[in-house]
Structures are given as structure tokens and as C-alpha cells.
């Protein structure tokens, strides 16, 4: 199956030692390539902005070309090495885990953290997504960011992001993961605020970082507790010691997982910390595709899967994970139904899909969570990049006619299919995929999650069976709602009459090649990506073509070694999960759901097309509920009123009333009272003999009286 030449190359001794084990340098290249890219691009950016240069940007074309090569090139190099690693694991027949320690980071007598990596079947999947999708998005960015002044700075940040993201998934311990965890948050901050002159955009970056830090706090506390409970913070040590120290449903493991859940909620934009993600759309669109859809926001899911042993032992936390996930999924979907900004729809859609992933890992279907993570990376990256292509075109067209219209507002679009047919076609693939229509990738991943939710509810001794049934209903409702808002999104953008301001419409043109190629590749992946993990039940059914289609359940077996322990725990405590959904066998249900989703799509399309929507400013044609959804349930306003403002007031109070008014005043008062006592004493030092004589007499009298009586 594997090309023998490739085999030879891999085992040529360049990368493996005598025992056919990887040399540590090999995986290090994966991390180092983006870092080198960052250093080169960062240096170029600083060089172009060096002090004492008046004509900034002179002869920068050559440098710009270097950036265009180094930026995507470093990620491609990384991707190739990931591929080699992956092939090697495939060749080995059985997925082996590779560990390498490079140096000791922190060391005290009872605490040690090594700068080390762990490549196992889970991390290699993540690495492939990060570098693969990352490379495509870098490529797309060459076209998208072409005319930007901070071109080098952009690629420097983007490379740095990939570097930290790889640390996040490759680290061999929780502290190393945390390095990546905060690092990607930092890059997200820098990239959201990429156009920093715009106060709104700079503020969005700030908000993202601060909200993320609430999650980071949870991560830190989780590490602390893990350290004091197990004395170990690396994955191997935790896996070894967990079963000996923790008990199923114990308070300690529940607390640790709750802290990690907080971390995941922050990073993966779940209720109640999701508020930063919609604002994060202020960044350039490829950034939204890479960071805020495909990779960084899925870190929370990765964390939970990575800690599956702990989560499997904490049924309460797991139920909470699933509950938060499915609530977020439904909640965000409702908002997505009423947004007009093309990126905002996708942002809420991302939050909603992340909710699905949380639901998956919450019901112990860790593979399903990762599976949806992967397929989502494909179709959501495609949707974002497609939206980016649309915005790019709209921007230029509107610019041409000097229009001030918002190039991201779908009310200014419509009928773009005639100008951008390929983009439209590819986006339809992604739309069908995200809606869960057979046989596209999203169908297999999303519906596996829903199915697993159902079967978890029907498990032999499911912890909260009725709760999981509610989750199941919510998940199904969300699936149909997804089909609805995605249809609305597509029709408003690509179909119907063109609503772009006079004359601008014809200036809209198809995406340039450098941007189109990544879209096509992602389109391919969005279509077929789901075929890597089709459960046997499904393969044998009519939907699987009775085994005739080239589908496998490869991913399931691939990831199994990492989560085997958690399945073991689950089996021991919950028992066999029923392979049925609350309304019948899985196969039947799948067919029904997919058909429903397709029906919603068809009906929605005809409905939206036929209706001559007035697309006016919201409020003219909308009721209370629409407005409520349009304003995102007023959550931001709520937080502003009850958290942000009170915090500011309390800070002011602490400063003016407590620090200045009380402490400092007391300090100055004691100083002044010392001065006062001195002044009082000085009154007696008048320098006049008669005063002294008076006090002398007074004193003498006092002594005499004391003596006499």
C-alpha cells in the first residue's frame, strides 16, 4: 500500500536510529519549521519598519516575495514531516506512541516538567489537521492579504500561531500543553487586533484574551490539583496513577475535570464564555478560518479527549460537558438564524458545532468528538475562506464605486452565483456537509455524535438517562436548525437578485487562483472526509451502500489506543451502551435525519428564493423574537451590566476610597500626628525664661504635692 521508495526514505537512517525508532530531531522539525518562519517573517516585518526610514516599503517587493514563500513554505515543510511521521505509524502496523524529551524545563526536588513531546494517534490527527488546513489557509492568505501593509507581520503571527498550536497538541504534559494553550491565545489576540488602528478591532482582541484567561485559570488550577493529587503532570504519569488514586465519581477527579472543563469552555467558546468568538471575527477572514474555526477553538475538545481517563471517571462533569455542549449548540444556532453579517453567521455556526463536539466527548464518544473536529475543520475552513473570497470581491467592487456599504453584510449581496460560480459551488458542498446530508463528511461525524448521545441514554446503567434523552432531542433540533440557517446564508449570499449598490455588482469577480486552489482541496475533503470513519453498522446498511462504497471505520481504530482506558472505565461503570437511538435503530434514524436535513435545505431554498425579502434594516419587518435573536439574547449587554461595569466600579472604589481614602490617608495621618506631637512639644520651647520658670514651678508643686500626701 505504501510506496516502497517512501518506505526506504523514511527508514534511511536519516530520521531513525538502529532500533528503528525516531530520532527526536524528526518530530522537532515539525515544531521548528513554523518557528523559523515566524523568526524570518518577524525580522522582515521589523526590518521594513526600522527606525529612521522615511520611505517605508521601498524595495519591499523582494522581501514580500520571501514572506510569501517562507510563510506557507514553513507550514508545508511541517506538514510533510507530519505526513512522514504518520506514514511511519501506519507502516508500523500498530500505532506506536513516540516520546522525546529535549530539555528539563522546571525542576525541583519533587516536581519536574520536561520540554518533551508525545506523538500518538490522537496528536498525529491533530497535527495533520493543523498543518494541512493551516497550509491551505496560509496559501489563501497570499491572495487575501496581498495589498496589506503589514503583510510580513501577518505571516509572522500566523506562523507563530501554528507553532504554538503544534506545541499544544504535541506536548507530553499538561504544563507544556498550557504553553501552547496561552500561546495560541496570544496569537489570536494579535491577529484579531491585526488592524489595530480600528478601536473596535483592537478591543475585540483584548476581549478575546481576557475571556480566554478565565479559561486558562481553570487550566492552571487543574494542573495544580493534578500535581498535588498524583504528583505527576505528564500524560503518561497521569494515566498510570489515575486509576490508583481516583475513584469513579470521586470528588477530587470531579473537581479536576471541572477545572479542565472551565479551560475548555473558555478556549472553545462555550456557554458562558463564548462571547469573545463572535467579536473575534474582527480579524482577517483567513485568521477566522484557521484560528477561530478549524484549530484553536477545538483545543478544548482536544484537552478533554486527552484527559479522557479523568473525564470517564467523572460522570457528573461529563454530563455537564455534554449539557454545556448541547445547550451551546442550540443557543448559538438560534442566533445564527438572525444574523446578517456573513462572518457572524459562521461564527455562531462554529460555536454551535463546537457544542456538538462537546456533546460528543461528554457522552464518552471521544472518537466521535475528534471525528467531528476533523470534518468541521474541513467544511468550516471552506465556508470561512469562501466567505473571505466573497468579502474580498465585495470589498474591491464597493471600493471601485466608492460605496461605503458594508462588504460583509449579506443584505448587500444576493445573486453572487453568476459572478462567482466556482466559489458558490464549493460553498454548497460545505453547506450540505455541515447540514449533515448524506454522504458528505458532516453527516457521518455529526450524526455519530447524536447517535452516541442516544445510545448513552439507553446504556445499561446510564448515570442520568432522562437528561441524556433531553440532550438528544436538543441535538436533533439543532441539526435541523443548522440546515435552516445555512440555507438562509447561502441563498442570501449567492441566489436571488443582486442587491449590491448600483453598478458594483458587475465588478464582483471570481476568486483568484491562489485563493481558489485551497478552496477546491477543502471542497474535496469536505465531501469525502467523513469516509474515514463510518461505523460498521452504517457501512452495512443502505446508506453505506451495503459495503460497496469505499468507506472504513479507520479513525475509530486509529484513536482507540489513546482512549482505550476511558472506554474500559466506562464499560465497567456504565456498562454496554445501547446501539440504538431513542426512536429506534441507528440505521433507520440516520436515514431519517439526513433526509430531514435535506428536506429542510430544499424547502428553505425554494422558500427564500421565492420570497422577495425586504432585507431592510432590522426592526422594520421583525418581531420581538427576531430582534431578541438578532441582538444575541442581549448576553453581551448582560455581561457588561453585571460584570464589566461593576468590576470597574469596584476597582475605582478600591483605588479612591480604600487605597487613597483609607490606607494612604492613615499613613499620612500618622505622619501628620507625629508632626503634631512635635508641634505640641515645641510650644513649650518658647525660648523665654519666664515660661520655663512657670513650668518649673508647676512641676515643683506637683512633686511637692505628691511627696506631702
Amino acid at each position: 500500500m505504501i510506496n516502497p521508495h517512501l518506505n526506504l526514505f523514511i527508514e534511511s537512517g536519516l530520521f531513525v536510529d538502529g532500533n528503528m525508532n525516531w530520532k527526536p530531531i524528526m518530530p522537532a522539525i515539525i515544531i521548528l519549521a513554523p518557528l523559523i518562519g515566524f523568526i524570518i517573517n518577524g525580522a522582515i516585518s521589523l526590518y521594513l519598519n526600522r527606525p529612521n526610514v522615511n520611505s517605508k516599503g521601498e524595495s519591499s517587493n523582494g522581501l514580500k516575495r520571501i514572506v510569501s514563500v517562507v510563510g506557507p513554505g514553513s507550514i508545508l515543510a511541517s506538514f510533510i514531516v507530519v505526513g512522514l511521521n504518520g506514514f511511519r505509524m501506519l507502516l508500523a502496523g500498530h500505532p506506536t506512541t513516540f516520546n522525546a524529551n529535549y530539555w528539563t524545563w522546571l525542576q525541583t526536588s519533587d516536581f519536574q516538567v520536561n520540554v518533551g513531546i508525545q506523538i500518538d494517534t490522537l496528536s498525529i490527527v491533530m497535527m495533520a489537521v493543523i498543518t494541512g488546513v493551516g497550509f491551505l489557509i496560509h496559501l489563501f492568505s497570499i491572495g487575501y492579504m496581498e495589498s496589506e501593509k503589514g503583510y510580513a507581520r501577518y505571516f509572522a503571527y500566523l506562523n507563530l500561531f501554528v507553532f504554538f498550536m503544534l506545541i499544544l497538541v504535541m506536548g507530553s504534559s499538561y504544563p507544556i500543553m498550557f504553553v501552547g494553550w496561552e500561546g495560541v491565545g496570544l496569537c489570536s489576540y494579535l491577529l484579531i487586533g491585526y488592524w489595530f488602528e480600528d478601536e473596535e478591532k483592537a478591543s475585540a482582541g483584548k476581549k478575546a484574551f481576557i475571556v480566554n484567561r478565565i479559561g486558562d485559570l481553570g487550566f492552571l488550577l487543574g494542573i495544580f490539583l493534578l500535581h498535588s493529587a498524583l504528583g505527576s503532570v505528564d500524560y503518561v504519569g497521569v494515566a498510570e496513577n489515575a486509576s490508583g488514586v481516583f475513584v469513579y465519581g470521586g470528588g477530587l477527579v470531579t473537581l479536576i475535570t471541572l477545572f479542565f472543563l472551565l479551560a475548555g469552555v473558555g478556549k472553545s467558546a462555550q456557554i458562558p464564555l463564548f462571547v469573545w468568538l463572535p467579536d473575534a471575527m474582527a480579524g482577517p477572514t483567513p485568521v477566522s478560518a484557521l484560528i477561530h474555526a478549524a484549530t484553536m477553538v477545538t483545543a478544548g475538545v482536544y484537552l478533554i479527549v486527552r484527559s479522557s481517563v479523568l473525564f470517564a471517571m467523572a460522570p457528573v462533569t461529563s454530563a455537564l460537558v455534554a449539557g454545556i455542549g448541547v445547550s451551546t449548540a442550540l443557543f448559538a444556532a438560534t442566533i445564527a438564524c438572525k444574523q446578517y453579517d456573513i462572518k457572524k453567521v459562521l461564527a455562531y455556526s462554529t460555536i454551535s458545532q463546537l457544542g456538538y463536539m462537546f456533546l460528543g466527548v461528554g457522552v464518552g464518544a471521544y472518537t466521535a468528538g475528534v471525528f467531528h473536529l476533523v470534518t468541521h475543520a474541513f467544511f468550516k475552513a471552506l465556508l470561512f475562506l469562501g466567505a473571505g473570497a466573497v468579502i474580498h470581491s465585495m470589498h474591491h467592487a464597493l471600493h471601485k464605486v466608492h460605496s461605503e456599504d458594508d462588504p460583509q453584510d449579506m443584505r448587500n449581496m444576493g445573486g453572487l452565483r453568476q459572478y462567482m460560480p466556482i466559489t458558490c459551488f464549493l460553498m454548497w458542498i460545505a453547506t450540505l456537509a455541515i447540514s449533515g446530508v448524506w454522504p458528505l463528511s458532516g453527516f457521518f461525524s455529526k450524526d455519530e455524535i447524536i447517535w452516541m448521545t442516544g445510545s448513552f441514554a439507553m446504556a445499561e446503567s446510564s448515570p442520568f438517562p432522562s437528561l441524556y434523552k433531553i440532550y438528544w432531542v436538543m441535538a436533533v433540533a439543532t441539526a435541523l436548525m443548522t440546515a435552516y440557517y445555512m440555507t438562509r446564508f447561502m441563498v442570501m449570499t449567492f441566489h436571488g437578485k443582486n442587491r449590491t449598490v448600483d453598478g458594483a455588482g458587475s465588478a464582483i469577480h471570481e476568486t483568484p487562483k491562489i485563493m481558489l486552489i485551497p478552496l477546491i482541496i477543502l471542497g474535496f475533503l469536505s465531501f469525502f472526509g467523513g469516509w474515514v470513519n463510518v461505523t460498521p453498522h452504517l457501512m452495512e446498511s443502505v446508506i453505506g451502500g451495503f459495503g460497496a462504497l469505499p468507506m472504513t471505520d479507520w479513525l475509530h481504530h486509529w484513536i482507540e489506543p489513546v482512549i482505550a482506558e476511558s472506554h474500559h472505565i466506562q464499560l465497567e461503570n456504565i456498562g454496554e451502551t445501547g446501539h440504538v437511538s431513542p426512536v429506534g435503530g441507528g440505521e433507520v434514524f440516520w436515514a431519517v435525519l439526513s433526509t430531514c436535513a435535506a428536506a429542510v435545505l430544499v424547502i428553505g431554498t425554494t422558500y427564500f428564493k421565492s420570497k422577495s425579502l425586504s432585507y431592510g434594516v432590522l426592526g422594520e419587518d421583525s418581531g420581538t423574537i427576531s430582534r431578541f435573536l438578532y441582538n444575541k439574547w442581549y448576553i453581551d449587554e448582560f455581561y457588561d451590566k453585571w460584570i464589566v461595569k461593576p468590576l470597574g466600579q469596584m476597582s475605582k472604589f478600591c483605588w479612591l476610597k480604600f487605597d487613597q481614602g483609607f490606607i494612604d490617608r492613615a499613613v499620612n495621618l500618622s505622619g501628620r500626628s507625629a508632626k503634631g506631637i512635635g508641634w505640641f512639644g515645641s510650644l513649650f520651647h518658647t525660648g523665654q525664661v519666664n515660661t520655663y520658670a512657670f513650668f518649673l514651678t508647676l512641676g515643683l508643686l506637683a512633686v511637692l504635692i505628691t511627696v506631702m500626701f
Partner: protein
Amino acid sequence: MISLVAGDAWVLQAILWLPVVGAAHVILGSESRAKILALVWSTLVFLLSASLWWLYNPNAGSGYQLVSSFEWIAKFGVNYALGVDGISLFMLLLTTLITPIAILGSFEYIKTKEKAFYSLMLMLEFAVLGVFSATDMFLFYVFFELTLIPMYFIIGIWGGGRRIYAAVKFFLFTSLGSLLMLVGILYMYSRGGSESFAFDHFLQIPLSLTEQLWLFGAFGLAFAIKIPLFPFHTWLPDAHVEAPTPGSVVLASVLLKMGTYGFVRFLLPFFPLVVSNSFIVGLVMGLGVLGILLCAWIAAVQHDAKKLVAYTSVAHMGFVVLGIFATNEIGLQGAMIIMISHGLSTGALFLLLGMLYERTKTREISEFGGLAKSVPWLTTMFVVSAFASIGVPGTSGFTGEFLALIGAFEVSPTMAIFAATGVVFAAYYMLPMVQSIFFNTKTEPENSELQDLTRRESLVLIPLIVGIFWLGVYPKPFMDRMSPSLNEVIERVEDQEDIGVTLFTPGTSERRVSEDLGHVVDSWETEPTEVGGSD
């Protein structure tokens, strides 16, 4: 003198006295050459002190190295005794690193009475080096007080509008604490048979719990004011706002560390009974946590960028105190690393704010805006320092806070959890400032004409940035060198019986806190939470 001291001990002597020679040279030289001379001498000191990195051998057993001792006042047993161990080593290096940087950073800022200024800077370095290298209580006290004088003049002469108020407040507040410590020192001296002021001698003095409590108060207050520990911090924002840039840099980077150094050097080993009392530990840690939280909030609403950074110093020092009073190796390592890290990152922030002030003559945050466009290099440096300050992994700030918090968590999870929320509030005070100074649109048109970093300014900042990343990525060489000395301190606290104290009843002052955690953990394990659900 070199022949009088054994082995390499002359290095330490030379490091201490070279600044004095330099100060004399500056005074005798011409006004125009003052700054160059000061820079040359302080750089010389730094280069010489760099040899300590290799001269100090962490594996050579406990105690001081490069020791040399001379009789000073024989009648009272006062010795002029120097030495270095893993704790003072990095404080010395930090001092010798920061001084030339502060001097180079003041070339444009200080325009008047340059001879006086630069000789005072060198005298300040001398005094601080004395504090960190003395191994005799009397000598230590002399140096401790001596630091006040140059700093008083630096603030009082080259400071801002309310410089006299700030200088007097600084002087009176901190010397009040020191006087109490002097009483404490003299009491211990007499309890020890009035023989010697040597640290090692003081360690042997058997003290009852009551005595230790009072002495802990006297010493502790002196250092708490110096650190400054909340709520003794109000002199700091005033001093920082009024001090000239180099003054602020030395004050934040080096002078504050004398307080935390005192905690590690004296409070823990001298008064182990008090330090193992859960109430006292809780109280001090509580003040640290209060400092972290309140000063973070207060920092967030400041209008003056320098004052903001000053308040963040108090918050950082809260983490240091938390780590120290965890009295375990992780906590102390963390505390030491924060001390160094704070010196680097806050020093850099003060320098950068000073550079901005030189250009715009303002420190009001609202008067900046959009500077990233006109001064991209300065912005880069500032953002790096700011993120190091709020403890992003990969920078020194994270290494220190992470270790200090883990250490504290082992002793008191509650305190550590509250303190850890400080990482959120750190972002809450730092990012808005970064945004309003460097991002957004320009508020003042003249801000677009600003000069970016000059070569000299880059030279000032680069060593700090290098240090920030070194400590963030590979702190092990530092930790290895500190470890033996810190463990010695911990052993002192843990082996209280060794000093022959019988006055306290077992159980009252044992380390209850860590047991509490163990107890909680046990109870969790034995009584698993009820898991709902049907059968």
C-alpha cells in the same frame, strides 16, 4: 587586599567596592564625561560579577562561598564579612545587570547635575550590593539603611513635581520599618550573648515562640514595607510617579527585592516557629493575595501609565510573598524567579515609559494612541515586556508565577486559587493600557512624528528581553544554583527541634495547612460523590 582574602573571595570584594571607585572617578571627572564613566564602571562591575555564575558552586555543600571576614568593631563582635550563596547570587547579578542598564537609559533623561546623579547611582549600587553580600547583621543593617540616602536624593532632586513629598514619604516610611528591625537585631544580639552579629551566630540563638513572634513582627514589618506588602505599599506609587526613569528602574528592579530577600534570608530561618504557625502563614499569605487582587484592580483604573506599572509591582510582590511562605522548594524557587523576572520585565516597562515620556512629555494613558504605527520597534518591545509581566508562558513571568502558585497550592489551596485569579486580572489591567497607548487611532497629531528606538535605547532593552526569554524557556541553570540554599532554608523551618526550643506545645504550631489539604483529599476519596441516575 587581594592577598588578604582566600581564593576567589577577592572577586566579591571587588564587585562591592568597584562602584565606589567608579563614583569617586565620576565626581573627580568632568561633568560631560560623567555618564560615560558611570556606564564604564558599572559595566565593569557587571562583567566581573558575571564570573560569579561559574565561581559559585552549587554542589559544594551548604553555606556561603567566596567568604571573607575582617574585624570591624572588635568590641561588639562586628565583622565586615561578605559571602554569597544561591539566594544572594542572583540578587547580586540582577543588581549589577540593572545598574548599567538604568545608567545607559538615563543618558537623555538626566540633563542637570550629571556628576552628582551618576555618582549617586553608583553609590546606590554599592549599597544594594552590600545588602546582598553581607553576612553580618550589623553590616547588613548599615547597607540596608545606606540604600535610602542615594535614592532619597535621586527622587528628591531629579524627580517630578511632587518629588519632595514622595522622597520624604519614601524615606520616612521605609526607615520607620528599619528602626524596628534594628531593635530586633539588638535584642537578638543580646540574647545571643552579645558576642557576634554573624548570620550563622544568629541562627544558633534559641528563642521562645513569644520572642520569635515579636522579632518576626519587627523584622517582618521592615521588609514588608520595603517589598512593599499590602497594605504598606502606598509610598511606592508616589515614589515611582515622581522618580526619574533610572530611579524607578532601580527602585522596582532591585530595591524592592531587598524586602523579599530579607523574607527568605531572615524571616524563614530565624523564626521557624512563627513561620510554621498556620495562622501567621495564613495572615501573610492573605496579605499577599489581597495585594495581588486589590492592586490589580487599582492598577486597572489608573490614568498615569507609570502609576499603573507601580501598582502591578505590588501585585507581583504578592506572588513572591505567597511563594516564600509556602516554605517548600517549588514555592521558593518560584518566588526567586519572580523576583528576577519582575526586575527584568518591570524594569523594561519603566524604561519604555521613560522613553515615551522623553518624546511626548506625558504619561497620561489617554494622551497616547496609535503609536504602533509610528514607533513599531518600541511597541514590539513594550508588548513583549507587558506579556512577560502578565506571565505568558515562554517568558520569565510565567515560570515564576507557575511555580509559586503550585508551591502555595500545596500549603493552602484556597489562597492559591484566589491568587491564581490574579492572572485574569493581570490581563485586565495590562491589555487596556497597551491598547490605548499603542493601538486605536492617534489622538494627538504630533504622535505620528515620534522617533522610534535609537541604537542606545535598543541596547538598553535587549539584555532585559534576552533575560525574559531565557528564564522563560530554560530556567534550570538558575534553579539548580538556587536549590541547595533554598533547601537549607526549608530544612531550618522544618527541623525546629534542632535549635532546642521546648516552649511550644506540639500541635499548636505544626504545619496544619498541608495536613488540611491531605485531609480534604482523603475525605474526597473515601466518600465518593453520589452519582445520580437509575439502576
